[in-house]
């Protein structure tokens, strides 16, 4: 079935493009192999049973652009076929000893198609164009993280260039010399198989999870004023990637160069209420309390501020500078008002600690209401993420330093993500070698550092300190990537 889908998608793309009245089709893409080793942290709060230590990901990417009609109209596709597999997951046995779980059937061995972008853009006139399909739109000025990005698959801040997948939408845009007005309607993809969507907006009758329409609508006004990029965004969404219903949200972004070489930017999102899950402390105070909640079929997670009238903000400010030797430094600070405070983070850790105890006791953790939400989830859409950034606290720092040509075609980069409350950090050094004009080899590392115990939460037993980046299911990760462009 999946093979047929692969063949169907690619032959469909080629067919569409062949039928189109092509002026001069452009084709390019790449073949990529990523081999990674992740040293599992089996004693941590998060389960590692589904985390193979060795993974291999093969990606065949094709990007096709076929202009037609007037000069500005075209059909575009950016599609990846992905095959990945993993071996050697580790966990704990009944005696608490680390064991290999080779016999497990890992879900990630399934092939998938990632339709990163697939759209038709028709330009009626230079000042009016219409787009339908899937496209990654990023209006915000943030480099590592975009608070106003409510549409796209989340990107990996340790490698913002990795995630290419956008959102399905229709878009009308009126571009003028200094201003642009954009209207977008993005329906939620509710059902898909192997990355191929087949149900939008409403749940199908055979799996009616609710009767609501799931969508996000956006109006965006862009202005180039005083040599600055200014975006004002108005969102109205209903159950689009979160639990908000009929919700207005307001976004803005700003970017400008100061003192010729310093790019300074700000990006912010404002809304009333928050869709964040908070842990019910009464459900996680002890094992008995958790059992009580489970018996009542009461989830320990609640969206207690969903309909709050309080205004919540998510603000990112940053600067970027390229130096004379072409090295680049980017520093950004993120504030998210709905992040957990110390007490709320402690209750989250309490819940995770209870789940860990339940797993060790051999209890069916997956059947506990809310357990999967506790452990977080990953999007089914887009490329498989190297690192999933879901900030839990309120204050973060991102820093990226990149130095090209440390020797010939070698580029070195260091990315740091820091939780400024518990001072835990994630370091991601990498070296990239552009061996030829068509081959790039990269070696990347991911190294979490626990920060200061005094600022972390503490588990009940055995009384270990937990900080955000100490609470990842691996001790370190190393990855080698070969990308061949064509």
């Amino acid at each position, binding site marked *: 079935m999946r093979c047929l889908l692969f063949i169907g998608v690619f032959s469909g793309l080629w067919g569409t493009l062949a039928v189109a009245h092509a002026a001069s089709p*452009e084709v*390019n893409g*790449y073949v990529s192999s990523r081999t990674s080793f992740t040293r599992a942290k089996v004693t941590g709060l998060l389960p590692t049973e589904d985390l193979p230590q060795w993974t291999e990901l093969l990606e065949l990417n094709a*990007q096709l652009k076929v202009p037609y009609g007037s000069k*500005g109209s075209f059909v575009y596709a950016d599609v990846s076929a992905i095959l990945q597999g993993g071996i050697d997951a580790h966990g704990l046995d009944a005696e608490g000893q680390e064991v290999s779980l080779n016999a497990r059937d890992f879900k990630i061995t399934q092939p998938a198609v990632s339709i990163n*972008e697939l759209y038709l*853009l028709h330009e009626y006139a*230079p*000042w009016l*164009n219409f787009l339908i399909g899937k496209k*990654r739109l*990023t209006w915000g000025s943030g*480099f590592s993280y975009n608070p106003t990005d409510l549409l796209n698959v989340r990107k990996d801040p340790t490698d*913002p*260039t*990795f995630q*290419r997948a*956008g959102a399905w939408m229709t878009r009308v*845009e009126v*571009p*003028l*010399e*200094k201003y*642009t007005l*954009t209207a977008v309607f993005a329906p939620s993809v509710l059902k898909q198989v192997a990355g191929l969507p087949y149900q939008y907006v409403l749940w199908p009758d055979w799996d009616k999870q609710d009767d609501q329409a799931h969508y996000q609508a956006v109006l965006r006004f*862009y202005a*180039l004023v005083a*040599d600055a*990029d200014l975006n004002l965004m108005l969102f109205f969404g209903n159950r689009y990637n979160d639990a908000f219903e009929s919700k207005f949200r307001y976004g803005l972004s700003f*970017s*400008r*160069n100061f*003192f*010729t*070489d310093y*790019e300074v930017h700000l990006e912010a999102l404002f809304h009333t209420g928050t869709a964040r899950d908070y842990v019910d402390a009464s459900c996680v105070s002890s094992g008995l309390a958790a059992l009580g909640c489970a018996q009542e079929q009461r989830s320990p997670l609640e969206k207690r501020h969903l309909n709050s009238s309080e205004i919540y903000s998510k603000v990112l400010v940053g600067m*970027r500078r*390229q130096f*004379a030797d*072409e090295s680049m430094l980017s520093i950004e600070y993120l504030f998210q008002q709905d992040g957990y405070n110390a007490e709320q983070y402690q209750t989250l850790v309490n819940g995770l600690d209870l789940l860990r105890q339940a797993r060790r006791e051999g209890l069916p953790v997956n059947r506990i209401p809310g357990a999967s939400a506790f452990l977080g989830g990953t999007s089914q859409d887009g490329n498989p993420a190297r690192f999933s950034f879901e900030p839990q606290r309120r204050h973060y720092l991102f820093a990226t330093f990149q130095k*090209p*040509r440390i020797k*010939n*075609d070698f580029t070195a980069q260091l990315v740091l993500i820091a939780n400024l409350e518990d001072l835990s950090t994630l370091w991601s050094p990498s070296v990239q070698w*552009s061996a030829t*004009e*068509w081959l*790039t080899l990269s070696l990347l590392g991911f190294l979490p550092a626990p920060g200061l115990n005094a600022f972390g939460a503490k588990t009940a037993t055995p009384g270990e300190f937990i900080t955000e980046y100490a609470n990842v299911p691996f001790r370190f990760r190393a990855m080698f990537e070969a990308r061949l*462009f*064509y």
Partner: protein
Amino acid sequence: MKKVIHLLTLLALPALAAEPTVNQLLAKYDSIMGPLSFEAQTQMTATREDGTSRTYVMKMLKKDNDKFRIYFAEPSSVKGQEVLRNGDNLWVYIPNLKRSTRIANRDSFQGGDFNNADVLRVNYQIDYHGTLIPSDSEDTYCVELKAKNPDTAYDSIKLYIRKSDLMPVKGQYFGTSGQMIRSAAFSDYQEFEKGYTRPAKVVMQNEQVKARKTELITKSITLKVDVPVQRFTQSDLGK
């Protein structure tokens, strides 16, 4: 004696009258190297310290004095990348990022020895004050240019212009310290359109790392193209 002097003065007048002013020289340079609107196919080859090189194929679009757009076509690893100038603003669109970010005028252009302003901001009349100074050759004028604002590529430039046809011959480019950073050699003068001749080849030599140089070749150029102003907006990048 007076009659002789008078006669000599009369003889010298046509020559003096033919001597172009600095503004005329700069206007001519700008019209050659940065015509008001054009579409060009170009190729840039950057030679690095180790002797290896990288070649890029680009399409360039220019409109008015302050709108410029570049589309990279080769190699495959940068295909789809775009650079845009609108006024004093520069952006680069990276296909893998699926978005544009701002860049500065003095940043290196695609890692070569040109910087962004060298390619995207060829309007010396607007950006520099010029003074005629003695040239190192009888066949050339030498114009010394001083930057009017910090958005320019260099703090000063010495531009050598051939007397016979006012074509640029060489340039020397200086940083804030007064040290020569780059030097350029203009050659392969070709008439791309009737009445429009320009050097098809510019070699920019890195004067700080002598093994490095970058060659920019104009393959074809069409003047007075009618491009909508929307092609020079940030919203159009990557479209």
